[in-house]
């Protein structure tokens, strides 16, 4: 959005180094080496710039300059002059995802474990192939010297997570992993110093390496989704243009706007705070906030909600509620309450660990007791018991879930679906009831001309030429429709925009007008808020009606979801007539209209109380509590910022097919996870008796572990992209 006040950009810059400032711009149109050069070249040629670097993967430009030498607006202007649209990232977003320390820490741990595993394996192979005596003791010592620091460093993520769980009286998968690691290391150290035959350093470090592979993949998946979401979040201006009583205007950050101040909102901008109209008249698009599909006309005294879009004319408004008291803050509070239910969800791997850990630990205990009863010494009984723990250490179990989920997320990404984290897939697979919002979810949430455009090609080219000069949503929709018909807009030189009314130009002595029907001279009886009229010279005006159409494939997607066994409902904030119309067109029997955010949430809670697992698909600010409250949730990429934050998944394409694709992939992933568990358990059923009988050697452990991990990863890769 180009309506940024220049000083506003300072809010998006951050200090890079002492005396240097930095800004990150999202430049979505970069797609080739030439674009990289053009953008970097344009910015580097500015005076004072010390660094300009495009990150092609994230379509992001980072620019740094000596503080005070440059207005950041010049950078934005330079990029736009080079032909690319750019918008700033908020510093908070940049800090949150610049270099995610969690992922980096895991990758480093994995690199160290990989290095150690290879070198210890090198030494172990010599031991297995017959090195003995002093050589074996030396090799064990060297292995110990490599393994101890590795386990201390690379094992940290597991130890701290296991400790955290134990302190709260719970167990998770990291508890048996940590116990196995610590015992294997202790036993191996004992063997090394008593000049024993078998040290298990290789098994312990290899286990770490495989487990870290799973963790790293999981963490990278989350990073990628987070970067995708940050790129989508619209730049909601964190400020407002305030008019002082003296008449001077000043851009203020949103926090310092107080109730009673006069705020100016230009046409095409979003309303920054809740308030009442003082001067001006316009139409307000509230679809993203309340779900109401028809723009509402407002005049002095009319109420405005933060986040709604001012369509037609400039408005002056009096701020009534800001911060905690605003509609947005109420929605956020509802959202936070609703989210607590989801935090109680236990992931499938942790549920497996609850069963797995006691079984394994009991098996080890019985082994020790059994060997003691059979007359073996304490040492041999302990060694065998620890061998059982090492053999059963959940190498394959640790990979079983992340391998499948990472694969599922990457095939979904190919279909334009962003999955925020693995637990979303698990929850999605369990859902049996589906709640849709209407405006912006079942429908596109943007106006499109109804039927065939009632203009000749020549007139349409002129109308499109006028529309090209405006940012009004209806103008843009008309322009897009004309382009879709293969019409090239006639370039028009002098177009004047009359705020709140329309566009005007003179061509060949004829006056052209495109705008509000009554202004362009259309029949007043036909006046409809979602319509434009075009008038050329003395000819009668032509009315172009618009509507918010259903998404392409909406009917097919709903039919497919019904086949998948979902009970489908619509909960909308819109009026009854359009909701009924959409429900009938799609064959959805249960629908409710005119709901407030709290009503929607209450409906979800009622369904939950009946034992349903609810999948919510919605986009608006009013849907955010419902998205947070559902068992799982999906939002389109056009959703409000709050909606995108609350949803588990986002779909980037217009087609509603994304919803059945997501559900079916999640269900398939769930069955792959279960297959993996079955295989991992099958492996244990084979391996545990061998270990209990005392036949397990480090060699057998190494082979068994690698094999089971390969099988589990291979099974995960079978997951295919959805149709």
């Amino acid at each position, binding site marked *: 959005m180009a309506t940024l006040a220049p000083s506003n950009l300072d809010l998006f810059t951050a200090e890079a180094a002492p005396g240097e400032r930095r800004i990150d711009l999202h430049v979505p149109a970069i797609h080739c080496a030439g674009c990289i050069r053009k953008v970097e070249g344009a910015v580097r040629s500015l005076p004072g710039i010390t*660094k300009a*670097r495009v*990150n*092609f*993967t994230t379509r992001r430009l980072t620019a740094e300059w000596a503080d005070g030498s440059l207005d950041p607006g010049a950078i934005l202007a330079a990029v736009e002059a080079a032909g690319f649209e750019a918008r700033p990232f908020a510093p908070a977003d940049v800090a949150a995802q610049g270099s995610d320390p969690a992922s*980096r820490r895991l990758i*480093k741990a994995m*690199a160290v474990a990989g*290095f150690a595993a290879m070198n210890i394996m090198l030494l172990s192979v010599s031991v297995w192939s017959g090195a003995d005596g002093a*050589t074996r003791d030396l090799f064990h010592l060297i292995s110990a010297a490599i393994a101890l620091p590795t386990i201390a460093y690379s094992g940290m993520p597991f130890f701290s997570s296991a400790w955290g769980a134990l302190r709260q009286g719970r167990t998770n998968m990291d508890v048996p992993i940590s116990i196995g690691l610590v015992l294997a290391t202790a036993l191996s150290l004992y063997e090394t110093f008593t000049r024993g035959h078998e040290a298990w350093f290789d098994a312990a470090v290899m286990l770490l390496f495989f487990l870290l592979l799973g963790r790293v993949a999981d963490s990278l998946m989350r990073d990628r989704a987070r970067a995708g979401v940050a790129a989508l979040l619209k730049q909601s201006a964190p400020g407002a243009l305030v008019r002082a009583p003296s008449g001077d205007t000043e851009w203020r950050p949103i926090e310092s706007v107080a109730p009673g101040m006069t705020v100016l909102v230009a046409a095409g901008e979003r309303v920054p705070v809740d308030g009442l109209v003082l001067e001006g008249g316009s139409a307000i698009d509230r679809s993203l906030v309340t779900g109401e599909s028809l723009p509402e006309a407002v005049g002095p005294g009319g109420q405005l909600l933060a986040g709604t879009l001012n369509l037609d004319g400039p408005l002056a408004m009096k701020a009534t509620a800001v911060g905690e008291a605003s509609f947005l803050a109420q929605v956020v509070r509802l959202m936070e309450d609703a989210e607590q239910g989801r935090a109680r969800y236990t992931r499938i791997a942790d549920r497996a660990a609850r069963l797995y850990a006691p079984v394994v630990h009991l098996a080890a205990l019985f082994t020790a007791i059994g060997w003691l009863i059979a007359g073996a010494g304490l040492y041999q009984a302990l060694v065998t018991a620890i061998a059982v723990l090492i053999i059963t250490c959940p190498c394959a179990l640790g990979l079983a879930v992340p391998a499948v989920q990472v694969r599922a997320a990457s095939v979904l990404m190919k279909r334009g679906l962003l999955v925020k984290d693995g637990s979303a897939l698990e929850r999605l697979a369990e859902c049996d009831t589906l709640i849709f919002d209407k405006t912006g979810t079942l429908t596109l949430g943007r106006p499109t001309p109804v039927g065939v455009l009632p203009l000749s090609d020549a007139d349409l080219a002129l109308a499109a030429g006028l529309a090209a000069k405006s940012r009004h949503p209806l103008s843009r929709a008309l322009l897009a429709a004309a382009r879709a018909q293969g019409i090239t807009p006639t370039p028009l030189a002098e177009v004047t925009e009359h705020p709140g009314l329309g566009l005007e130009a003179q061509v060949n002595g004829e006056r052209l007008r495109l705008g509000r029907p009554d202004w362009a001279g259309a029949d007043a009886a036909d006046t409809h808020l979602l319509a434009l009229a075009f008038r050329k010279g003395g000819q009668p005006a032509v009315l172009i009606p618009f509507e918010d159409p259903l998404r392409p494939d909406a009917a097919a997607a709903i039919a497919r979801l019904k086949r998948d066994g979902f009970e489908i409902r619509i909960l909308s904030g819109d009026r009854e007539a359009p909701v009924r119309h959409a429900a009938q067109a799609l064959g959805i029997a249960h629908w409710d209209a005119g709901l407030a955010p709290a009503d929607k949430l209450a409906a979800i809670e009622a369904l939950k109380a009946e034992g349903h697992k609810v999948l919510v698909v919605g986009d608006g600010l009013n849907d955010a509590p419902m998205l947070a409250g559902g068992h799982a949730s999906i939002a389109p990429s056009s959703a409000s910022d709050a909606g995108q934050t609350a949803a588990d998944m986002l779909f980037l394409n217009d087609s509603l097919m994304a919803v059945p694709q997501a559900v079916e992939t999640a269900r398939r992933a769930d069955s792959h996870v279960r297959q993996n568990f079955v295989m991992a358990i099958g492996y244990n059923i084979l391996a545990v008796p061998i270990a209990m009988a005392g036949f397990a050697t480090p060699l057998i452990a190494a082979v068994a572990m690698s094999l089971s991990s390969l099988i589990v990863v291979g099974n995960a890769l079978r997951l295919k992209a959805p149709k």
Partner: protein
Amino acid sequence: MTTIGFLLPIALLLGLGGLAAFLWTMRSGQYDDLDGAAQRILTDEEDGPES
């Protein structure tokens, strides 16, 4: 067996060298923009990693 005396340290040092190199490449941000690196070889002009 004396060959082990110098072969082992050499093997370990080489491995450590690889590990150090990997950690360095990660710290200097060489994995931050893998697609960009693939595109940048198409440009003729000098283009250092941090300019």
